[in-house]
C-alpha cells in the first residue's frame, strides 16, 4: 500500500516511509486531491485485482493510512 501510494502520488520516499497507521491522508497530503483519490482507486483495483463498488467510494476511506490498508485487506480477503 505504501508502495502504491508512493507510486501514484509520487510521494517523497521519506513521506511514504513515514506513514503510520494513524497518519492522516485526504486533506493532509497536498498530493492527494479528489482526482488523485479516484486514480488511486483505479490503481488499487488494477494492482490488487479487486473491484471497488461505486457506493464504497467514500472520502473516509482515505482519512488515514490505516483506514485505507484495512479497506484494501477486507477487499482482497473478499
Amino acid at each position: 500500500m505504501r508502495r502504491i501510494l508512493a507510486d501514484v502520488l509520487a510521494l517523497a520516499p521519506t513521506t511514504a516511509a513515514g506513514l503510520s497507521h494513524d497518519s492522516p491522508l485526504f486533506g493532509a497530503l497536498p498530493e492527494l486531491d479528489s482526482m488523485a483519490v479516484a486514480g488511486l482507486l483505479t490503481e488499487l483495483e488494477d494492482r490488487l485485482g479487486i473491484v471497488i463498488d461505486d457506493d464504497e467510494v467514500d472520502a473516509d476511506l482515505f482519512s488515514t493510512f490505516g483506514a485505507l490498508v484495512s479497506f484494501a485487506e477486507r477487499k482482497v480477503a473478499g
Partner: protein
Amino acid sequence: MQAFDFRFVDADEFQLPAIVRGPADGPVVLLVPPLFEEMNRCRRLLADLGRALAARGIATVLPDLPGTGDSAAAAPVASWSMAIGALTASLALSRPTYVFVVRGGALLTGGVGATGIYRFAPVSSGAVLMREMMRAQAIADQERTGGRVSVSGYEAELAKGNAGRLIGYEVTPDIAAELAALTLPSATSSCRTADLKSGGDAVFEGPPVWRQADPAPTHALADALAADIAAWIG
C-alpha cells in the same frame, strides 16, 4: 531555450492553435493531449517532450483540441478524433509523420495516416476515464457537503438528460454517451506502447503527472521518452 512557433494549423474545418517546435523538415511527431483535467496536468510533460525531441532534431506539433485551451468551438468528442485525423493527414502530405498519444488521447486515434503511433500510458476506454471523473467528483462533493454522494447519482442525472459538472467540466448527456463509447482503437500503423508500469514495450520511471494536483517536474521523464521515440523513429 529553443524557439517555438505558436500558430494555427488547419485540420479540416478546424483551425487549431498549436505549438510547433523543431526543424521545418524531416520527421514530425503530432503530440495528442489527454482529455479533460488530465490535459492540464500533462501540459508540462508535453512541452518538455517537445523540447527534448527538438534537441534531437525531431519536430513536434502540439495542438489544442477543438473547444479546449485556446481553441474556439464547442467540443463534441467526435470533433477531437476528426481534428486529430485531419491534422495527421495534412502533416503526412509533406513529411514522415508519427503520432504520440498519452492517456485519454489514445482513444482519439489509432494512427490512421501516420507512419507510426507511440502510446504512453494509454487509457483503455472512455468508460474508465468517465468513471474516474465521477469518482473524483463524488469525493470532492463529499468533502464539500460532508454528506454521502454516490457515483450513481451522476449517472442517474445524465440518464434523465441533465448535464452535470465533473471535475470542473460541463458534461452533457451527449458528451457522456460519446465518451462512454470510446475504446482504444486498434493501431493501424507501427505501434509502440510505453507506460510507468510493465506490460508494454517499454517501462519508464517517472511521476504519473496526470494524477497529480501539482505535477512533479518532468524533465527526466520527457528526456527518456524522447530518447526512446527517437530510437523508434530511427
